[in-house]
């Protein structure tokens, strides 16, 4: 407290007034102090997060031949990107992937979370086992699922054959446009549903048992308790999980890169960015694509936050 007052008096230039004014001034200085304390983290954020974004936006305005800058091009790179069918098919796959994988992860994750929230023998083991896919590095999981889905050695096909589906001996999951995107989605759901489950489980555990008890007293059956108690109270956790997963899925790179190298309509926007920065270098076009990706991810994130921001705040106050 003593420090606060000191800082206030040194920083403030206005003459001392009544008690009310004094309190106000003290509040102001607290705020200033807060700013000083926040400055280092704001600064780190600016250097780490903001600088690359702005730098990419600047680069995207220049024209390149190979790695050499050949002049200012204005919005020409954006025009090239937006008129390229490859960009639109990448957008299509990215959104397809985001919607299907996030939906799958949410439903399965919610199921797991409800299961893990029950008291039963072996609950601890179940919680640990369910998390295994999530702790495997994505690139390794992707390589693993590549082997599983690939014709050779063909583990997935063996499973289908074993349960009596003939004709799956040489089914080429990763080698045709009708199944390759689904294989990638499947691998992502397998890998990330546990993460969603974990977030939702944390939410479930903040719901007090008394609420369910009074629900039972009022005669609500299991479904009614889930629909009218669990879901509304879990909403903040659900929103956080969906936000995290959506933003993550929009940037997907490693799974399709390893499983299909972007063949058969599985080229995501991030893969496209990598192609133009590394593989066939055109840093201007690459930066334009990454700026577009940033805008898409940011707007989807903002839509989430603005639609659901109220709930997020209320949720945090209740929690």
């Amino acid at each position: 407290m003593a420090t606060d007052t000191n800082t206030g008096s040194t920083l403030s230039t206005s003459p001392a007034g009544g008690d009310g004014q004094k309190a106000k001034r003290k509040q102001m200085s607290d705020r200033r102090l807060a700013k000083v304390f926040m400055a280092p983290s704001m600064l780190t954020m600016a250097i780490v997060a903001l600088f690359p974004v702005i730098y990419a936006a600047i680069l995207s305005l220049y024209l390149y031949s190979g790695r050499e800058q050949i002049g200012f091009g204005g919005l020409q790179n954006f025009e090239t990107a937006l008129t390229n069918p490859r960009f639109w098919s990448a957008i299509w796959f990215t959104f397809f992937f985001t919607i299907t994988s996030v939906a799958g992860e949410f439903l399965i994750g919610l199921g797991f979370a409800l299961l893990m929230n029950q008291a039963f023998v072996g609950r601890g083991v179940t919680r640990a086992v369910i998390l295994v896919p999530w702790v495997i590095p994505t690139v390794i999981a992707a390589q693993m699922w590549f082997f599983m889905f690939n014709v050779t050695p063909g583990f997935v096909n063996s499973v289908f054959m074993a349960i009596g589906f003939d004709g799956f001996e040489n089914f080429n999951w990763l080698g045709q446009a009708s199944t390759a995107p689904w294989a990638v989605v499947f691998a992502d759901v397998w890998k990330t549903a546990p993460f969603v489950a974990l977030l939702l489980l944390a939410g479930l555990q903040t719901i007090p048992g008394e609420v369910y008890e009074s629900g039972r007293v009022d005669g609500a059956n299991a479904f009614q308790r889930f629909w009218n108690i669990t879901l509304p109270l879990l909403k903040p956790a659900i929103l956080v999980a969906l936000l995290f997963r959506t933003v993550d899925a929009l940037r997907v790179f490693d799974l399709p890169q390893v499983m299909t190298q972007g063949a058969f309509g599985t080229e995501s926007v991030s893969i496209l960015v990598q192609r133009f920065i590394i593989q066939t270098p055109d840093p201007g076009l690459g930066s334009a694509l990454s700026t577009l990706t940033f805008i898409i991810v940011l707007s989807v994130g903002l839509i989430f936050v603005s639609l659901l921001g109220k709930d997020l705040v209320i949720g945090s106050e209740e929690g």
Partner: protein
Amino acid sequence: MRASSKIARPTVSIAAFALVASACAGVGGGGAEEGELVWALGGSEAQPGGVHQDVAALWSEQNPDTPITIDVLPESADEQRQQQSLELNAEGAGFDVLGLDVIWTGEYSDNGWLESLEDIRGEIEDVSLDAAFESAQWGGELWAAPYNSNAGFLYYRTDLVDEPPTTWEELKEIGLQVGEEEGIAPFVAQGAQYEGLVVNYLEYFWGAGGDLLSEDESEVLFAEGDAAMTALEFMVESNQDGFFAPGFNTMMEEEARNEFQSGNAVFMRNWPYVYDLANNEEESAVAGDFDIAPLPTFTGEGTTSALGGYNNAVSAFSENTEAAKEFVLWAATDPEVHRMMAEAALPPTLEATYDELADDPVMSLLGEVLPESRPRPPAPNYNSISVEMQQNIFPAYNGDQDPQAAIDAIRDYLEGTLDN
């Protein structure tokens, strides 16, 4: 917003400090000590125990004033290129000698990353394989010294096939017939959407009498004649009638090798490195039951293969250019070096080595195939050309795109790149 304007000044000064600090760190690190050379090279033979390490040790022993050490780059060529270009783009002196894939010559020289080797041209040209030497030039100037080479082989099962076919049609017929009798796949190769697919396609294309560019690289000949279409239609049909193994379109070198050495394929197109591995009794089901032959053509005459391998170039930012030049010259011309590589089943570029080692089956076949092998155009934008070819050939042979449209698109792209 108000808050941000108030913290603006400290932000700027601290940011400036941070930048200065990191810039200083950048100056301090990297850069070889005087007299010492650094050789940026990737692949398994660059690892400790590999033959490139022995070559480096031999040089260091003979030249104690300018010893060389290998900076081991990643396994895949794309990642090696990435590592080298990060250093060279920043004009860093960290690498003196660059192990250059044969298709990077144009790009690197265009970027101004390489020292010209015109002054030692004569000493290298006379003793090197022609195709390897050609791959080290761009724009009529020598930018690298040939080091090791590579070419595709036809692997066939001697217990199932008597004589290796000499045309693709014949190979397909035998493959389909034997494959059906044995219940195995007729043919495995590199069919995934990556550089290997372009290599395989070009081998069909050249085997049908095609040429990508005119001799002086001024004109696109790709769609002249019917070679482009013959090659692509062969792939389309092969994919439909089952000549290409199941899962062909996700196969790279290692997947193909695994299938062949598990006894699941009659024929395979692959590089020489497979020979020793597939003859290993412990790991291969076909050890002793296969042989190698030149790749067939569509006419039955001669053979053709896409040339692979690495040349050594001198970085334009090296602080020890003279010693680096001496090293690449020595590595291109010293018989001992090339004998060592041949023993490690790495095809040397020194022509005389092949006469010396004519008894070795791989070396003798390489001696036959390499003079017929052709470099992919080492143009500055080779990577873009390759990606464009991948993106048209791959959907076309999988039946997702009209072959003629794919060929037109590739021709237009090639013409567009020559105009620039």
